[in-house]
């Protein structure tokens, strides 16, 4: 049993000391136009949950991005301070993984699958049709912040290829001819 308790620590000796909620309040919340009071409270909770668990900065960043929509630099610095990590570490992680975005997103995220099966079945034409119609490049957002266009790696739904995911809706068998009709539905 004694051995077991040691094991569930999971840290391999790299224990992080919790600083407690009292300390959390001393962290100055930077002012940011896209983050309101409720979001900050939620962010504090996320940091609080993850701080004692080493290696959880990726999870913390992901959850904070879900709250705010993207990761502005002041937010990343705030997360770093909260989790006792240098800002360079947080930025290093956020810039490495494709899930994280440091620029604001549109109201709807259009994720076009660039997997091999979709490619063979003509996703390239679908992509260029969207780009031409809304004048957005891959990774860009329309001027009116209606759509963000992303090219993603295989979504594992190759049975439906070519695949496009708008927000949480998966659209299978999308053709260049029909794709604009699908997108019209998202205001």
């Amino acid at each position: 049993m004694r051995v077991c308790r040691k094991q569930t620590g999971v840290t391999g000796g790299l224990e992080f000391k919790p600083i407690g909620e009292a300390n959390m309040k001393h962290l100055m919340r930077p002012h940011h136009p896209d983050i309101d009071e409720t979001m900050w409270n939620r962010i504090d909770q996320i940091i609080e949950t993850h701080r004692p668990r080493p290696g959880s900065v990726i999870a913390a960043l992901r959850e904070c991005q879900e709250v705010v929509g993207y990761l502005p630099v002041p937010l990343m610095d705030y997360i770093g301070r909260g989790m006792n990590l240098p800002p360079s570490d947080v930025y290093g992680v956020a810039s490495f993984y494709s899930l994280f975005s440091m620029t604001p997103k549109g109201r709807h995220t259009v994720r076009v699958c660039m997997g091999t099966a979709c490619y063979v079945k003509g996703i390239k034409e679908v992509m260029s049709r969207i780009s031409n119609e809304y004048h957005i490049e891959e990774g860009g957002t329309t001027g009116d912040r209606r759509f963000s266009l992303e090219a993603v790696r295989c979504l594992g739904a190759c049975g439906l290829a070519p695949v496009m995911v708008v927000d949480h809706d998966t659209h299978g068998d999308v053709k260049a001819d029909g794709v604009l009709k699908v997108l019209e539905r998202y205001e």
Partner: protein
Amino acid sequence: MQKLTQRELEKRREALVAARAADGKIRLLVCGGTGCHATGSIPVIEALKAEIEKNGLGDRYAVVETGCNGFCAMGPIMVVHPEGIFYQKLTAEDMPTVVAEHLIGGKPVEKLLYKNPVDKKRIPLQSDIPFFSHQMPRVLRNKGLIDPESIDDYIERDGYKGVAKALLEMRPAEIIEQMKISGLRGRGGAGFPAGMKWDFASRSVSDIKYVLCNADEGDPGAFMDRSILEADPHAVIEGMIIAARAIDARKGYVYARTEYPLAIRRLQIAIDQARELGLMGQNILDSGFDFELEIYQGAGAFVCGEETALMRSIEGRRGMPRPRPPFPAQKGLWEKPTILNNVETFANVAQIIVNGGQWYASVGTEKSKGTKVFAISGDVNNIGLVEVPMGASLRSIIFDVGGGVPDKKKFKAVQLGGPSGGCIPEAYLDTPVDYEEIAKVGAIMGSGGVIVMDEDTCMVDMARFFMDFIQDESCGKCTPCREGTRRFLQILEKICDGRGEPGDIESLEELSVIIKDTALCGLGQTAPNPVLSTLRYFRDEYNAHVYEKRCPAKRCVELLKFEIDPEACTGCGLCFRACPVEAIVWKKKEKARIDKEKCIKCLTCFNKCKFGAIN
């Protein structure tokens, strides 16, 4: 809830089997995998339930949402069990008909049955459909048969028998011995014998060890791991507990892609259920053995499928590989001995323990034992998940199980192993599925993605596609991979855009050798494979691009003229109606012409024209 002992587990199983036999309910198994969810299986389930309720059939029929059935292209799918009638492409509106004609009338609904693309005949029974009849389900034995969110469904089908046996009747050395006899090799792609890996880790002395499951299925065109996790998550958990026992680890992680939300949710449910019954956590089945399992979500980096990079990522850092040795079996996660296996590898383990290594090794070739799960997609009739014995030929997978190439097009090549793999042409289709044999023809077994390509695919463009992927996913740590793949891509783009020069093909070959020899990790070392294998079999296409400025498959738009041949044009106007930018000039009964100022080279007219009049 009560924590189970081995005897109580057996009792629970017997009771479940007896209860199932006693209620005599016919089970309507509706596929609830990611694919079928997207095509609308949830409304189908709701409509079916409502219709059964309305007709008062609740005591004779049970609707079950299963994991991925495997035949993704035909979704939403329903199988009537135990009869075995297979329905495809269902909609909620079909449900009243199904209930009235089949459940009440006793006659299967003809128009919803599977139609054989060869002779256009309907096939009512799942077991008669070629896609299923050529398979040998072992890893996928529960797919489409159980509710993945119910641990009792799993226990009823001999679930957790392997854990009970491994924990209470076997010593760790015996577990490893059986794994070695089985000859099971890592299903992630490299094919390292799992038993040996476990043996190394068990010999490492440390108070803390880890068991990791690689569910970061990054290869484009691969969805085996997602389907296994969605259809049978407990099988993976069971394999991990047994592995932990073998190497004496108390903690495990499943590193899963964040793009697979349904798989993650079902795995979490499975872990919680196992913990509740005492099959996870402290003192599992009263054996004195403890094991905790946690899901770690990745954040979208292909290189994290490499073992050392994956471990860095779990540590919360940039997922960059490091040189080996030390191997993870000595120094892995948090510098502790660690084993990492793929989802499919772990899903095999429990059956090996229950039935013995000998049983597992009875199927397969000399060096590759057991079965392999493949995800077939691309230009093929039957898209989906298949499991075949090792040694089966690629031809049988593509033509017998996969049903061949649709639309009377000609088969051109099959791509195996994702961005690290290669393309195999028709001439080598009789190659058996075997790690060594596939390597001989220039591809790799890989994790199991099989992408079929028809004659309309340009192989230079395919090489460019994979190189674009690899150079984007290169982590940037070592120069050969970071700079080499970029240079690769520049040359390939040049060739595809019609700016290819003599010497370019030779540069590609030279670069390949250098990158292969000098890159730090598997990602870089295998990066040249897509180029090398296409060069090996389709060099004439490269030559046509470079020397004749011509794309034989007519996919590279910069090499196409976009002119209408007045001889071939019938003046039908199909292209005119299809063009999104009104670049086609056409009047009724007149031949069409393309206005090059307006043309955006989208290929729509080219694909629409039935007379091949567009160049």
